[in-house]
């Protein structure tokens, strides 16, 4: 890599706005993925405890926790491909 292309590379990829965008995207992806795992844990825990204490209304709780997983998955996809 010669000096001119190196300076172009540095001015493009090591500039302030690019680095801010890069860290913003990286932070978004990592935080949504961690949150996604967390919602799966909640879903599993709710399923587990609804087996321990059974009630007709508990299926609503399991459904809401499942919806939450789906919404967070949408966020992960958004962070990965559209941000």
């Amino acid at each position, binding site marked *: 890599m010669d000096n001119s292309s190196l300076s172009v590379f540095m001015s493009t990829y090591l500039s302030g706005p690019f680095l801010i965008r890069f860290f913003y995207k990286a932070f978004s992806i990592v935080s949504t993925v961690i949150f996604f795992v967390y*919602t799966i844990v909640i879903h599993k825990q709710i399923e587990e405890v609804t087996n321990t204490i059974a009630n007709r209304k508990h299926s609503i709780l399991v459904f809401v926790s499942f919806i*939450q997983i789906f*919404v967070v998955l949408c*966020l992960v996809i958004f962070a990965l491909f559209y941000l």
Partner: protein
Amino acid sequence: MDTAKSSHKYFHSFCIRPNTRFQTQGENEVVIAMFRAHPITLLFPFLNGFVFVLLLLLANFYFFVFLNVKEILFINFFALILIFNYYWYNFINWYFNVGIVTDDQIVDVDFNVTLYKEVSYTQLTHVEDVTAKSGGYFATLFNYGNLFIQTAGTEINTEFLNIPFPSEAAKIINELVESTHNHG
């Protein structure tokens, strides 16, 4: 209190004869009562969540001018889901932390969404003493408190925290213990 009729008070936090079953329930075992923390204990998490919403609104006005539309959309959406999750976490913790009293045993379910789940069973014949304690401004105002159930020997003592009408609950358990001792 009449324990023969089904009744639910304070958003199902004090239920008599609830339509609930648990995993290790015997075939002829009847659930007499079920207790949760008083719903007023959810007030502080509710207010916290409201403050988070206000902070998000303020952030939209002051800080997000530097970001593009996609980024603003993402942050808002993510923050709203986090706030919803905060409410959900507190609700689930409240909903699944229950004490169940049957005609044979007392079941204490201590549940934390992410950390642990602990279910302890105490036979009514092992109950030595039931104590209801209530103290503090909110507890007196809304009539809630703690119920401590002491058992014989080295068994774990059971406690139901912040339940409504703790003295009524103690009375129900005492009556059941008495009838168990008389029959046993």
